[in-house]
């Protein structure tokens, strides 16, 4: 096992003389970006070169989530070919391993990396390949083009910290409410969301316990899309609401059942088999709808208007072991 400093060493080339971007490599994988694309290269087990091409915008939006979420729960598929699986202390990087045909053909590659190593590489890649005019967290109508040659950086926007309440948003010492002053104006698509806070009538001494906040108002001020925050916590039950617009940049395959509560507007989900990618269901969710994503599926959402989605996650640390032992059910409920 290498020392942490060694693990976090990023292997990158000098910037390309014309394009301005660096090439990266991680284990047996190579990464190259040009004006429009990201090219991923690897070798099959019998030594033949394989490659995969992704649109640079799609790739950077996916990479942004993978980095910001710390590789999240389970599978972060950038598309039908490429992605990561989180093992919480290490991360699998793969090409083709969760594509039914590529896996069957044996031309896939999966390599495991210490989390520090893949994180450092992904962070450096994200910073080098994101131009100043492009914000991968923003909705397409809110940002510029991801294409073209290297043109500055957007480091502040790609290093936003995830907002995680410990007990509840707005409690003393916990995550603050969002406001204009804190750099969180109301999003154009939520201009009609009432901003008033709940009436609180605490008796003296109970000011931090008689507590409520305007969750919809809080979400209307989200500056990012497809990036859950924690707003309230019951033991290891996390309310992770988020605002969604356009396409979820990843196809998520959770290692556990995950629940979606659609609080406003609508999202359409494509659900497929986690291991092969073949389509299994569409889930059309409107305001007030609840649906579970079974643990055997991967899912990608489409939100026509910025909407409020409550992602409800079970973050129990023992769950990882139950999943490994096959004791965690893949379906949400039997009836």
């Amino acid at each position, binding site marked *: 096992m290498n020392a942490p400093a060694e693990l976090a060493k990023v292997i990158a080339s000098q910037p390309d003389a014309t394009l301005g971007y660096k090439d990266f490599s991680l284990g047996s994988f190579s990464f190259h970006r040009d004006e429009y694309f990201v090219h991923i290269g690897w070798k099959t087990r019998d030594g033949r070169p394989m490659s995969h091409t992704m649109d640079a915008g799609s790739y950077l939006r996916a990479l942004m989530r993978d980095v910001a979420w710390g590789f999240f729960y389970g599978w972060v598929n950038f598309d039908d070919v490429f992605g990561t699986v989180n093992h919480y202390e290490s991360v699998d990087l793969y090409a083709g391993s969760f594509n039914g045909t590529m896996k069957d053909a044996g031309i896939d590659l999966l390599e495991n990396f210490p989390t520090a190593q893949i994180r450092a590489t992904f962070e450096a890649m994200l910073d080098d390949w994101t131009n100043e005019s492009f914000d991968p967290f923003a909705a397409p109508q809110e940002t510029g083009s991801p294409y073209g040659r290297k043109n500055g950086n957007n480091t502040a926007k790609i290093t936003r910290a995830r907002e995680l309440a410990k007990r509840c948003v707005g409690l003393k010492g916990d995550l603050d409410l969002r406001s204009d002053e804190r750099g969180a104006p109301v999003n*154009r698509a939520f201009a009609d*969301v009432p901003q008033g806070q*709940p009436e609180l009538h605490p008796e003296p001494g109970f000011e931090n316990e008689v507590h*409520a906040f305007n969750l*919809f108002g809080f979400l209307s001020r989200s500056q990012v899309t497809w990036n859950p925050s924690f707003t309230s916590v*019951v033991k290891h039950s996390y309310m992770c609401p988020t605002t969604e617009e356009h396409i979820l940049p990843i196809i998520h395959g959770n290692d556990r059942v995950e629940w979606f509560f659609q609080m406003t507007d609508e999202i359409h989900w494509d659900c497929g088999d986690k291991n092969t990618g073949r389509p299994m269901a569409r889930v*059309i969710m*409107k305001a007030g709808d609840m*649906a*579970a994503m079974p643990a055997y599926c991967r899912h990608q959402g489409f939100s026509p208007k910025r909407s409020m989605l409550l992602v409800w996650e079970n973050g129990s640390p023992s769950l990882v072991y139950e999943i490994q032992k096959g004791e965690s059910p893949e379906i949400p409920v039997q009836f």
Partner: protein
Amino acid sequence: MPATTSATPAAYKTRFGSLKHFEKGHVEPIDDDVRHYAFSNCFEIASISKPYEKVVFGQNQIYVLETLRAEGASPWYTCAHDEFALVMDGDVEVHLVQLDASQTVADKDKNGAVLVKGEPKGRKMGWMKLSRGHQGLLPKNTAYQFRNAGEPGVIVLQSCKGELSVEKWADICQSH
């Protein structure tokens, strides 16, 4: 450098659901059992629920999300852990009492809310009024009561599954 093409900012209409007006989506199965998606709608559930019936519509191991029809005053509840109430429709008051140790849940690890036996004893902590989109803390070991005076409302409760939780999945979920 926004790529927006409109000269003037467009006015958006955020669609909320309500007991009186909700549109329900659905699962379109391709090659799967729709029951595995446990698809329901909180407004539909509340429209067929008894007042303050704690209908589980999301569960993950010990954890639940419940839909409650807020109509009139609820019983007084207490719970050994924090809970949170998110109001999805109507106006709901939440009254809180710092419960005497004699009335709190004896088992500190007990999951889910229980009914307070008799009238809650202890200092009044105050109350709050929640409207649509407001989320309130129901601190552990307090007594709380929901009160709704006007049109019935809908609460989504973040909690653990307890003795008052009602499961009727077949009644609330899309099954084919």
